[in-house]
């Protein structure tokens, strides 16, 4: 190793120590100004953040003559691409929520808080907000200096521009959110012609204010104190979970680089105590203390540490994605031998198959029968017993359909009022009142089951059937 390189290295390290001299434990009393450095994980973070572009662009996609994805709350219809979901299909939502809850658990169990570090809106928006801040106010030391500086014109100008941009981002976020619930194009038109309804206005302003406050000011404090997920991660992560971990076997005892010291003479571990991992941390924690509530596992400290290790010609990976077991030299249990994996995937499969079944049976009709209660039955002049039912035919398809009604149950029953097919309107419930008459000699019990059947065909001749059981009630015997 040449002396030249040694000198370069010393200079680089000197610079790093100066940068991190400021640090102390994050107690929320001070804004965290995290240093931004390029790296593999940084790029990955931009990529995962870019997924949120869907949130902004999505509402503008069309499907036929309507918005591709539209949660139409006033009309109680959710349109998702080609399918329309009615309130009757809402049970699928609970399966969807279960699916995502378990997915979160699986991912956390395997790789820590992937959601927090790479996808969470709090993380992504804060990242964008601080990016804007850095562009306008400069690096963290400059930002801290500006904070302490007395208010003058330059400071005011910079701050004004920053807050305006922040608010605009918040506003666009609010508008994008509302666009999922109303037609996006007419929303923008109404916005510029001042024709927005109060609901839209209030929602947009709440989102603007919320985004501005949460991403601009609360930032990592949200993760510390507002978000419940940070608190329950402790039960989701175990020794086999691979998370950004400081390899203390290799790093300790940490010690500053001594100028001119040869590699062989070194008594300290690989950690040079440069605090770069802390300087880049968006939540201001020290990863060297191990997994902790403040760590959102964004892996930016890995980038920072690797950069330092490269400068110092030491092997990278002092901080790396690793499980505690592997750190201690144990082999990871194979995935298929972990009960968690089996339980989680069972629940995931159940939820997914439920949703798949629901989606596959969306295009259908559904019949419900309500028995009249007052009176429960009527004696007719010919001695037969008559029951009255209100049938409700739900048409979940996109076209109106003629639905024929039939009934089976007690012998020789006569169905009155179903001679004409029901003109079942799409997306709606069409009621029909029918009477069922059964000759007295066939009314054998006080109650007997009766099944109503609705049948309809679409233009292609495909048959849709729905059946519903109810009771036929007769006099006490």
């Amino acid at each position, binding site marked *: 190793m040449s002396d030249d390189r040694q000198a370069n290295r010393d200079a680089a390290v000197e610079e790093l120590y100066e940068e991190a001299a400021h640090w102390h434990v994050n107690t929320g009393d001070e804004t965290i100004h995290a240093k931004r450095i390029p790296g593999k994980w940084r790029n990955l973070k931009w990529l995962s953040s870019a997924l949120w572009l869907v949130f902004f662009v999505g509402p503008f996609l069309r499907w036929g003559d309507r918005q591709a994805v539209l949660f139409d709350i006033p009309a109680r219809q959710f349109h998702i691409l080609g399918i329309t979901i009615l309130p009757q299909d809402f049970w699928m939502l609970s399966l969807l929520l279960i699916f995502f809850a378990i997915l979160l658990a699986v991912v956390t169990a395997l790789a820590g808080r992937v959601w927090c570090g790479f996808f969470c809106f709090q993380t992504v928006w804060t990242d964008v907000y601080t990016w804007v801040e850095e562009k306008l106010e400069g690096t963290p030391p400059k930002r801290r200096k500006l904070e302490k500086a007395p208010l003058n014109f330059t400071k005011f100008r910079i701050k004004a521009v920053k807050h305006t941009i922040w608010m605009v981002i918040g506003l666009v976020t609010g508008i994008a959110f509302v666009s999922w619930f109303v037609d996006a194009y007419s929303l923008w038109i109404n916005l510029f012609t001042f024709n927005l309804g109060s609901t839209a206005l209030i929602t947009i302003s709440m989102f603007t204010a919320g985004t501005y406050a949460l991403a601009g000011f609360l930032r990592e404090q949200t993760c510390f104190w507002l978000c419940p997920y940070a608190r329950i991660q402790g039960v989701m992560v175990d020794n086999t979970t691979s998370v950004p971990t400081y390899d203390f076997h290799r790093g300790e005892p940490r010690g500053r680089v001594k100028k001119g010291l040869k590699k062989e003479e070194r008594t300290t571990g690989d950690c040079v105590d440069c605090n770069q991992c802390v300087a880049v941390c968006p939540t201001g924690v020290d990863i060297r203390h191990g997994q902790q509530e403040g760590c959102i596992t964004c892996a930016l400290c890995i980038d920072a540490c690797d950069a330092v290790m490269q400068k110092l010609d030491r092997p990278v990976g002092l901080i790396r994605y690793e499980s505690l077991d592997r750190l201690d030299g144990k082999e990871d249990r194979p995935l298929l031998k972990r009960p968690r994996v089996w339980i989680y995937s069972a629940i995931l499969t159940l939820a997914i198959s439920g949703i798949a079944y629901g989606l596959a049976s969306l295009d259908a009709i559904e019949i419900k029968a309500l028995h*009249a*209660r*007052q*009176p429960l039955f*009527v*004696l*007719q*002049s*010919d*001695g037969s017993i*008559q029951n*009255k039912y209100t049938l409700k035919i739900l048409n979940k398809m996109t076209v109106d359909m003629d639905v024929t009604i039939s009934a089976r149950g007690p012998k020789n029953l006569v169905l*009155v009022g179903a001679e004409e097919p029901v003109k079942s309107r799409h997306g709606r419930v069409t*009621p029909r*009142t029918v*009477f069922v008459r059964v000759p*007295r000699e066939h009314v054998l019990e006080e109650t007997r089951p009766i099944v109503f059947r609705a049948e309809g065909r679409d233009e292609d001749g495909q048959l849709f059937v729905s059946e519903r059981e109810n009771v036929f009630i007769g006099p006490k015997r």
Partner: protein
Amino acid sequence: MADKNPFPGENNTGHIWDDNLRELANPIPRWWMIGFWVSLLWVILYSLIYPTWPTLSSFTKGFMGWTQIKEYQKGMDEVVEIRSEFETKIAGMSAKEILADEGLSAYTEASAKVLFGDNCAPCHGGGGQGGPGYPALVDDAWLWGGAVENIEQTITMGRKGIMTAHGKILKPGEVNELAQAIVDGKPASSPLFLQKGCIACHGMDGKGMAVLGSANLTDAIIRFVPEGDQTVLDSVKYTIMYGVNDPSNPMSRQAEMPKFGDRLSKDEIKKLTVYVYKFGGGQ
């Protein structure tokens, strides 16, 4: 009360009990005071806007002029406006025409429910099931006819049929024989039915006549269902012996459908007609 304050410098009021229990003179928390003043301000603003303070003979009205009655009226106006579309259509149509229109008859069925509950349900039951002495409207047996026009006339003009008490005209054995024949559904099988003149009102075959409101004695439905311990036979015998609405007999059954033509509007009667017709027995 201690003469000398043993706890100087802690801002107590000097009220000390049991050696060390003392009252501090700390100020009320700021958040509490803010809440207090905001509440006061609220009361003032509220009383300016809404009716609030009682005066000797009236009360302050508030500059918005808001009252509960106005609010209620506004809501009612909205309802009337929504209904007016249907109501104007109904006003120009007959009950039969309404029945022919699926949408209108559904509206009528829904809106006449209240009318039925107020005017008809006390006798005929909430679901038109009838009750002791009162005929069911849900079955297919009609004393005065089950066509739309018949039902409308029944509601408008009321009905009162008369059957003479036969207790003194017939011997007990004859009453028994006739009653049994009626319960069996074959009144004409007894020669007495013809001989004693039952056919005058109930017809040769005993099927009744809608113009007179006489009951069909051949069907499964008994006009006066038995009450208490009575059997069907007892009930029929009672009707034969004491009659219906017979002014000469104080034991006679009382059965009168009152006239609603002067209580309800034409449209209301039309709606009730549709409602009763759709019970299932309309013909």
